[in-house]
């Protein structure tokens, strides 16, 4: 399984903070994102494909080419605004 988490504006726009997905044929974050978009309404494409979405794999900032395997956690979030 892959654990998928969303934060802040993205979490609100998708209406969900956490999902899981079986690993199946998913090899990269791009595969996972494509599947999430296919499985949900059109707005998911807009939100998850936005230019400034940050992707973290296992709590380390990464990008859509990152390989994933069962047990990984993939996060999608907007640019950070702490401090």
């Amino acid at each position, binding site marked *: 399984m892959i654990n998928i*988490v969303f*934060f*802040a504006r993205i979490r609100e726009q998708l209406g969900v903070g956490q999902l899981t997905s079986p690993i199946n044929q998913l090899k990269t974050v791009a595969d996972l994102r494509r599947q999430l978009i296919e499985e949900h309404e059109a707005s998911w494409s807009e939100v998850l494909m936005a230019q400034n979405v940050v992707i973290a794999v296992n709590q380390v*900032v990464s990008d859509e080419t990152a390989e994933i395997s069962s047990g990984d956690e993939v996060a999608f*979030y907007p640019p*950070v*605004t*702490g*401090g």
Partner: protein
Amino acid sequence: MDCPISVKVCEDDFDVGHETAVLQHAKPDVGAVVNFVGYVRNINDGETVSALELEHYPAMTEKSISDIAIQAREKWDLLGIQIIHRVGRLAPEDQIVYVGVASKHRLEAFTACEFIMDYLKTQAPFWKKESTPNGDRWVDAREKDNTALARWD
């Protein structure tokens, strides 16, 4: 040289005097401490802010901040780093963040403290949502924070 790192992410407020004292306590080679304290302002982008909600990514936040502190420790000759970042609901004038750096001489402490703040602002997974008279809104990331980051390349 030993440079302990302490990172706390919590709802509780902090005491700048206490944190400063801890940084220097029993370290007679410390000649300089530089502290940064960030506060909730009552106005942002021209709108009155009545409250701030700070969301974070709990599994990642402390590790992400520790990584920044470790980078600073590798770049400069430091004697201690303490970082506190609050989360949850805050009001105007509340303290949000504390970054304290101890070193022998002042240049290292100033530089490392600025470096940590620039990285924290652009890398650590926190998000601010403001309450304004026109409703709640997510704070947008600022281009100038990315510009500030670029000077460390």
